[in-house]
Every structure is written in structure tokens, then in C-alpha cells.
């Protein structure tokens, strides 16, 4: 393929181990990038999954590291990023892919749950983007891609706090894209729809069937569906795309 090679680049895919992280990391690796990953906690299942993803990238022939990192701790993130850049390479591509939706009625959310939802989905993205973005701006090149749910501007019950973080991510994306474009750093959002991993359709076959009928492309979203758009946005070819929300959602948002 003439286009979209990421050979020689180093990508950092952050966030807890979410539904898309494997597909995102593997796509970047297949396109030629070294890939590093972060998980939010050292819980065994997360670490196992992160290492499994890392091994898959490694088997493709790429370098990188899987590390546990609290993304809201700027001092820790600074140290971790400095270490990664020293051991692997400067980070060219930052993919913020946190995963921490709390699905429950707004009036039942505790202050702790609200805080945790904001920390995971927004504060951690801002810290990481500050730390990595500062380095990208200094180097005059970078690609930041923020995963953003279509809930950023749609109303779905029991998702209000999570939806607020997604709207905030979009504001962050649009503003930063303009702030940094003359420094060679693009900032874009990759919009996703209703995924295979959602608890609702996994637990409720009727809901799943209803969603599959409603989504124009007739199936729930899989991580692989985002790979092409991610590689495009991460590539040198997308240097004139910034502050953009690129939605890959099976066309469900066309309903309204």
C-alpha cells in the first residue's frame, strides 16, 4: 500500500484495557508502528490482557512496552513517558482510549462515581495529552486521536455523566487541534457507536436484536471497525485533518 505506513513511528495507546484497545494497538503495529500501552491498574486480569496485546504487537515485529500507570497523576505520567521515549523512541502518535462508563440513573450516582467517571474519561486524557503533547509540539510533529462515544451529543438514559465527559473530550479535541496545528500536531476525535462489548446487549438478547435491527449496517461495532480510521488519522497523509470528529458507527447516528 502506497499510503498510510506508520513505519518508524512510536504510538502510545492509553487508558484502561477497553473494548477497542487490542484492535487499535494491533492496527498501529500492522501499519508499522512500535506500540506501547498503558493500563489503569495492576489488577491481574488487566495486566494479563495488556501483556497479551503487547505480545501480539511484538509478534508482528514491533517494539514497545505495556505499563501500569495512573493517568491522572501528572508527575507519574511525565516520568513514564520520559522513560518510554528514552527506551523505545519519541512518541509520534497518542491514542487516548479510556474505558470507564458508569451506567446508572443520574440521581443514583455517588459523588465518588461522578469523580471516577471524570477522572478516567477526561482528566486522564488531559494529563496524558499535556505530557505527550508538549513533547510533540516541541518536536513539530504529532498525532493525537481521542476515542469519543456518539453519546457526546445524543441523549441516552443513565449515561449523563459519561456523556458529559464525551462532550468535554470533543471540546478539548476541537480547541487543541487549532492550538497546535501550526506546530505540526493534529488532534482529532474518532467517534464510535454501540459496541459488541456493551453490557446491555451482552446480557439481553432482545436488546441486542433490537439494536442490530436499528443500526443501519445491521450489527454492533467491533474494534476492527475503527482500525482503518485510526491508521488514517495517525498517518502523515492526514496532516490537514485536525479538530475533526470522524464517526465510525455503522451509521446509527443518522437516525437522529
Amino acid at each position, binding site marked *: 500500500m502506497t499510503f*498510510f505506513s506508520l513505519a518508524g513511528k512510536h504510538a502510545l495507546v492509553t487508558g484502561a484495557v477497553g473494548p477497542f484497545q487490542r484492535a487499535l494497538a494491533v492496527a498501529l503495529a500492522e501499519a508499522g508502528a512500535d506500540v506501547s500501552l498503558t493500563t489503569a491498574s495492576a489488577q491481574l486480569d488487566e495486566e494479563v490482557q495488556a501483556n497479551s496485546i503487547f505480545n501480539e504487537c511484538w509478534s508482528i515485529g514491533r517494539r514497545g512496552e505495556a505499563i501500569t500507570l495512573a493517568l491522572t497523576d501528572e508527575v507519574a505520567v511525565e516520568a513514564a513517558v520520559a522513560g518510554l521515549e528514552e527506551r523505545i523512541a519519541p512518541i509520534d502518535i497518542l491514542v487516548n482510549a479510556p474505558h470507564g462508563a458508569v451506567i446508572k440513573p443520574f440521581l443514583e450516582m455517588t459523588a465518588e462515581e461522578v469523580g471516577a467517571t471524570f477522572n478516567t474519561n477526561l482528566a486522564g486524557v488531559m494529563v496524558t495529552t499535556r505530557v505527550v503533547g508538549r513533547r510533540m509540539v516541541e518536536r513539530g510533529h504529532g498525532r493525537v486521536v481521542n476515542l469519543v462515544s456518539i453519546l457526546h451529543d445524543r441523549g441516552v438514559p443513565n449515561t449523563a455523566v459519561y456523556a458529559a465527559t464525551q462532550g468535554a473530550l470533543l471540546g478539548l479535541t*476541537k480547541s487543541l487541534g*487549532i492550538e497546535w496545528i*501550526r506546530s505540526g500536531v493534529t488532534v482529532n476525535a474518532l467517534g464510535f457507536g454501540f459496541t459488541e462489548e456493551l453490557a446491555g446487549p451482552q446480557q439481553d438478547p432482545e436488546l441486542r436484536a433490537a439494536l442490530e435491527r436499528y443500526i443501519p449496517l445491521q450489527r454492533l461495532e467491533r474494534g476492527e471497525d475503527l482500525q482503518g480510521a485510526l491508521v488514517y488519522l495517525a498517518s502523515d497523509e492526514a496532516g490537514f485533518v485536525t479538530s475533526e470528529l470522524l464517526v465510525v458507527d455503522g451509521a446509527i447516528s443518522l437516525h437522529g
Partner: protein
Amino acid sequence: MPILDRFDLSGRTAIVTGAGSNLGREMALALAEAGADIVGVGRRPEPLEETGALVRERGRRFLARPTDVTDSAEVNAMVAAAIAEFGTIEILVNNAGGGAAGRGKTLPELTDEDWHLGIDTNLTSAFFCSRAIIEHFVEHEHGRIINVTSGWGFRGARDRYMYPISKAGVISLTKALAMSYARANVRSSCIAPGAFPHELTPEVENRAGLQPAGRFGRMNEIGPLAVFLASDAAEYLSGETVLIDGGAIAAGVTPAGIAPVVPGGAA
């Protein structure tokens, strides 16, 4: 399949309208680079032949088909000829268009002819081409329609009517096609270029600083987006309009001429 292979267009054929110049030529060449054969459509044969020579240099087949895309009979004949030549068509790029009609006239000054010319050039042409090819796409259970709108499809401006209105219509056409033919494995998407000047005269160059990016779009930046949207890597994407404008719409609330503050003072 590894991701870079999913962008490959080998064995596919693309009809590109307005293929004789500018963004249309660029998209045709990028699609050819990615493996596609090209049917080049435009009013005049000579520019199409120039595009054709460049496509053939890339090792792909090229059919030049001079066509007035605002004439449905000509469009139907063009699509029939393309299918006859290549067997199947997988990709349609509705790129033909222009902004001359009625430009700068106030509402009372606009004639019926201005209105129809503007709408026909930018919107009716995409409608005619999509209508002409859709049964072929449905029959083969595969099709990619890529429309081309403009940042103007999102904006309002004083005394500008036909171009923004027709370009907004193109965005809406994209959605209608996406919803209508999703189950037939037809995808429809739209590219919204910002400022990609045809000619970089010194006067034009001087205005680059007014762009948020401090520069205009480069001609070779448009083609790769068309390749992505035409490819299997965009399988789950439909109805979507992708801005490629260096942030121009996102930054639109800033008065023109106010350059963004740049960290470190770099320009």
C-alpha cells in the same frame, strides 16, 4: 487481513467525475495508486486524457468519458459505458462541481437560471450519477459512493446562496444514500475539503496566514482520504462527512485574520 491490505483497491474500478483537474484528478490518481482502474468523467476530453496518461503511468486502466453530468441521459450512458468496459464498478466519486453560479449577487438579483445552474452543477450531478449506478451496486452487493462537499456546506455567508445550499444538499444526499442502501453493502460518505486553491499565485499565497493551519491544503492531501473511504478499511463507516480543512470550520468562530496563538511563538 492486516490493516494496510484492507486499504488496497486492486481489482476495483472507480468512476470519478470532474477527473480532468484539481481535486478530481488527485483523487483519481490516488485511487489508481491504491490499485483501482479509473473511469474519468468531465466535460472536456483533453484534461481527461491528461489524467488518463497519469493513471496509465501507474499501471492502471483508464477510460475517458466526456460527459455533462447535469444531463441525466448523458450520465446514464456514461455509467452503461463504464460497466460495459470494466464489467463491474465498485466506486463512484461525485466530485464535479463549481462555485461560479450567482456568486456575489443579492437575493433579488439572482435569476432562476443562476439557481438552477448552481444546484445542477453541485447537487443534481451527484444525484444523477448515484441514481444511475445504484442498481449495479445493489446487484453486486458492493458499492462505495464518495461525495464531495465543501466547508461551505456548513457555513453561511452574505450573498452566497447556490454553492453553500447545494453543498449542504450533498451532505444530506450522502446520509440518504447511506440509510437507503446499507443493507445492500453500499456505503456512502462525503469529503469536505477546506481551502485547496487551484492556483497558488502570490496573491493567494499571501492569504495562507488567514488559515488556522497557516497554510492551504496541498493537492496530494485529498487523495489518501478518498482511498480510505473507498476501501474495506471503512466498512463500518457510512453517511459520514469528513472535514479536511486544517481546522477551518472548527476555528470558524475566530475572526478571519486573527492567527491562533502558537506555543513558543513558532509560525
